[in-house]
């Protein structure tokens, strides 16, 4: 089955397919091979962002060693002791909970109500009775100035794109690492109506709702929009030579994030433009919600991780013919990354939604 990693390695998988077909003609066969007989220990995994002026929410899990006897079964570690400190004398303990995503994401959410302060260095220390302790330092960048200059619908190669021009006003005093991403928030829209004295939810009684709508007997419906906090990534493009994306890939490569280090724009007001394919977020039958353009200033360690992550495809298969992509984290004694983020975000609503559905 074709996998996304194959696509990102455009050209290579088909070369290999030809080669494999050729090999099969020349006596090719597959055979199990012994995994390294080593006993690497599982490690604590920390994944998340500490965002300035936001509460603390990260997720934690544990890794699986690739070795003989290991099993691809993630077990979220319970009873992790997670402590967030900041000089001078600030200590906060994070508590875990259980949400619907644990099964899919293999991690538990950890949080605390305190808000993260910008331009501060936090230390996250995690211990567990069966796992080696993990710690990481997270620098929260200070406030920065950026804005969206304009947006436009443009047609390129017959494709309707949203062009977003962004001005970043770099202060020139510190080293900044900027990240631009486009996400779509998936909101839930549901209505309630009363029929024959009974209160109904539209999502739970769609057939009744539809029949009443058809017969023009539908009473007033009160619509509610809830925001469960789920997002979808919108792949984003750039043709800006100063971005890391064009060092790593191409103007034609779909990026998760646009990465721009300030070393090439230091102290300037710099305007860059990114493109998002509107067909991805304007879909009559797709999920509804605003498109959010996020402009972030992130910690250097997080920026380094994201550079590797941009090349890495999470669902990629591993084989020895492909060059490994190393995603470098900063969790000492563990794995993953906790990014320090100062975030600005701009929302646009493109979806059209009618009460009559």
């Amino acid at each position, binding site marked *: 089955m074709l996998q*996304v990693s194959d*696509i*990102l*390695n455009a*050209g*290579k998988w088909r*070369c290999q397919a*030809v080669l*494999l077909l*050729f*090999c099969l003609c020349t*006596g*090719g*066969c*597959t*055979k*199990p*091979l012994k*995994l390294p007989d080593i006993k690497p220990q599982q490690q604590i995994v920390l*994944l998340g*962002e500490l965002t300035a002026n936001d509460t603390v929410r990260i997720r934690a*899990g544990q890794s*699986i060693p*690739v*070795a003989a*006897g*290991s*099993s691809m*079964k*993630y077990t979220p570690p319970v009873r992790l002791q997670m402590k967030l400190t900041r000089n001078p004398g600030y200590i906060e303990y994070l508590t875990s909970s259980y949400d619907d995503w644990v*099964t899919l994401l293999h991690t538990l959410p950890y949080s605390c109500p305190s808000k993260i302060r910008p331009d501060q260095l936090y230390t996250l220390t995690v211990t567990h009775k069966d796992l080696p302790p993990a710690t990481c330092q997270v620098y929260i960048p200070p406030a920065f100035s950026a804005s969206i200059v304009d947006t436009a619908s443009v047609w390129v*190669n*017959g*494709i309707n794109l949203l062009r977003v021009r962004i001005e970043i006003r770099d202060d020139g005093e510190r080293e900044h690492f900027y990240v631009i991403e486009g*996400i779509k928030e998936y909101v839930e829209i549901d209505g309630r109506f009363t029929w024959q004295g009974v209160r109904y939810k539209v999502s739970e009684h769609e057939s009744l709702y539809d029949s009443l709508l058809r017969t023009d007997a539908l009473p007033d419906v009160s619509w509610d929009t809830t925001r469960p906090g*789920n*997002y*979808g*990534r919108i*792949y984003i*493009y750039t*043709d800006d030579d100063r971005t890391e994306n064009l060092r790593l*890939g191409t103007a*034609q*490569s*779909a990026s998760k994030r646009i990465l721009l280090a300030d070393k090439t724009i230091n102290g300037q007001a710099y305007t860059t433009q990114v493109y998002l394919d509107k067909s*991805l977020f304007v879909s009559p039958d797709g999920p509804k919600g605003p498109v959010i353009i996020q402009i972030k200033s992130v910690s250097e360690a997080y920026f380094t991780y994201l550079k590797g992550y941009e*090349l*890495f495809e*999470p*669902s990629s*298969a*591993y084989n*020895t*013919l492909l060059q490994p*992509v*190393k*995603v470098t*984290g900063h969790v000492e004694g563990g794995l993953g*990354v906790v990014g320090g983020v100062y975030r600005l975000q701009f929302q646009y609503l493109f979806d059209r939604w009618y009460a009559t559905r």
Partner: protein
Amino acid sequence: MKFFQATIWLYLFLLLLPLFTRAQGGKLLQTPYHPSFTVGRLDAFFDDIRTRTGITLSFSASFLNTTDIIRLNGTEETVGEALAVLLAGYKVTLAERRQRILIIPAVGWRKDGCTISGYIRDQTGREILIGVNVFIPALKVGAVTNNYGFFSLTVPRGNYTAYISYIGYKTDTIQVTCQDAKQWNILLQPANTLQEVSIVSERSDPLAEGDYLQVTPADIYRQQALLGETEVLRTLQQASPGVQAGIDGTSSLIVRGGDPGQNLYLLDGVPLYYVDHLFGLTSVYNTEAIKSADFYKGAFPARYGGRLSSVVDVHTKDGDMERVGGQFTMGLVKSTLNLEGPIVKDKASFMVSGRRTWVDGLILPFTNQIGVHFYDVNAKGNWIINKNNRVYISYYTGRDQVRYSEGDETSLRTRWGNTIASAKWTTVITPKVFINTTYTYSHFEYELKDRAQVIDSNGISNEGTYTGASRINESALRLQAQWFPQYNHKVEIGGSYSYSLFEPTKLVRVNARIPLPVNPVSNEFSSNEIMVYAEDEIKIDDKLLIRPGIHWANWVSEQFNYAGFQPRLYASYRLAGNHLLYGSVAHMVQFLHLISNNSYGLPADFWVPSTEKITPERAWIGTLGYSGKYKGARYSMEAYYKHTNGVIVYTTGKNIFDHSSRWQDKIMQGKGWSYGLELAAEKQFGPVHTSLAYTLSWNWRQFDQLNEGRAFPYRYDRRHNLKIATTCKLAEHANMGVNWTYMSGEAFTLPDQIYPDLDNNLMIIQPSVTSADYTYNYADWNAYRLPAIHRLDIGFNFTKKRNENYIRTWSFGAFNVYGRPNVMFVTLRHNEDDGSFKLEQLSVLQLIPYITYRLSF
């Protein structure tokens, strides 16, 4: 750096060594000596002096005729008095050095010499022969024919018998009288077309030099052929220690830890940029068109440059000057037809050879999904204008195509190929001076049509296509002059100018729904390379030979200017008996880089030039070796160390056509070093000839941006590499060959941990999120090893000779007889049910039989 400084000092010392041999006389000449006899040969008196006094006389036979009969006065009391009489007829001076007396020619002695020169050719087809030994036993001096069959040997005036010997030919003799300055035109008679011959040429030295190998078609045919494809590069893999295949079964060369792109491939002196055909199963070198191939993996002659690891210099046949004939070969994969003959008898000839795969036509009725084929054509003509002037014209063109279709649509099509041409003029200015002038043209092009990455509402898909191209054009004018002032002294100087046009990557067209406009940008640029070299081969005495050389190249364009001063030194010292110590130091500079994703012959390799940002690759290689003979067995042992700066690696697995103008950003440069010990031995046991080549080696790479800057083993860091080849003459017209190969497994990178995905955990869900989304963590680069590779190949040749001109050969055998599942690559999977991990290896080429028919007419 100390190593290099020491090397340069050693180099200067050896270069100046001859200046220090003029020691002053004294005590040794006063040593009492009473001759055992008064009349005898000069060499007998020298032996008598050594026996009775323990004093060794050191001299060169180039100025002493040791067979002269001398009469002493009978009154001589000392060594000095005896030598005064014995050497009265020679213009020499004497000097003492330790326990030796050096007999040194005085100024002007050379006027008494005479020069024997000429061409040596095959008697049957008048083909010039390369590397033929011309040896005069009385003087213990000799010469070797150069790449154009020319030799020159200056000796003292006298009458001599010279022996002409060459592997596979009957040894001939000529009587040299020095009475006239005629040019010799010697025809050697083949000994036996089926004769088992040594693969190692003895050249001028009876003991082989470990870093040099000469391969003839006979050597190539003796190798067991994968799918019947006899192949010069696979012969080198089998015959030379320190040389290994990339992936087993392919013809790629990994020489002493070098990258595949660090080998200089020449065809009639013209550089080739891509030599693989058909996934590396065979190369562009058509065995039927080959006359011989020279292979160097160290001690590089100064005329070669531009690559770091090895030189494969293949010479094609000139064409039969006597009659029209040829060969037809039919194997499982392709057919070859070779035709050659005279244009004007004994004056001009031609050779045309063509190959094409036909297996693609066979599979077409069954599937149209895959299409793989190649063809190539070699052509050559030569014209003997007169005894001193010859002209050669050669041409090669070849193309490969790989196509993969999904449904009715071609989703991948790649084509690549070389076209080269050369015109050479060789002239003998004087019997001592030979000049070769060559104009060469080389064109390499590569085209890839592939699916383009586009997006739609379901995420990324491949609905469009793009076409990328890469090409190199090179024109060069080369001059080579060889001067043979004395039998013990050969000077070669030369130079070249080449103009190259590079287009490393070009996005030609896009037919896809791609969001951002694609400008078909071209990053074409040109370079000029000027190269000069000089080399001096000097036999200091009958034991010591040194060959210092200089190669200087300047690579310049509007954007960059790189120069490479590349000293070379080879030295050998003959010990008592048939034992030879030799060593070499060479500095090599490579201005072109091969970006290689693999070495299994797929078109995923690109040549890119050095730029302002990407510096040339530079290597120092030092070797120290010993070779000898014992009871008919030949053996050698050689240690080497190679250090390379500027080796490159492609930063990501992405397509280089991605963004043409930024390709330099996707390349990392680092360094590599390798060292090892190579052993080789061969012996004839009656009808059985056995050879062994073993390599113990370590290969390392280091890049600042990889593996956190730590050194790691190179992918082909194979600790042990053992090759044993045996041929047996079963009957007059039947022989059998058995090869066994063992290689340690290659290094590979395996993730040590797997952990959940970042974006999912930020609640930014991928378009197609699954619970299998995870991140691999790599702790160390190339920290794991694949299983060792070994296999046994067996082949038989049955030949029937109807008459001198009609010979047919059936060859059959099997590759990997015991079906060893050697690993090509490995995938990591996990069991969906219990989650357990497993590595899965793909093995190919297990028990592959072959059959080949060859008709020579």
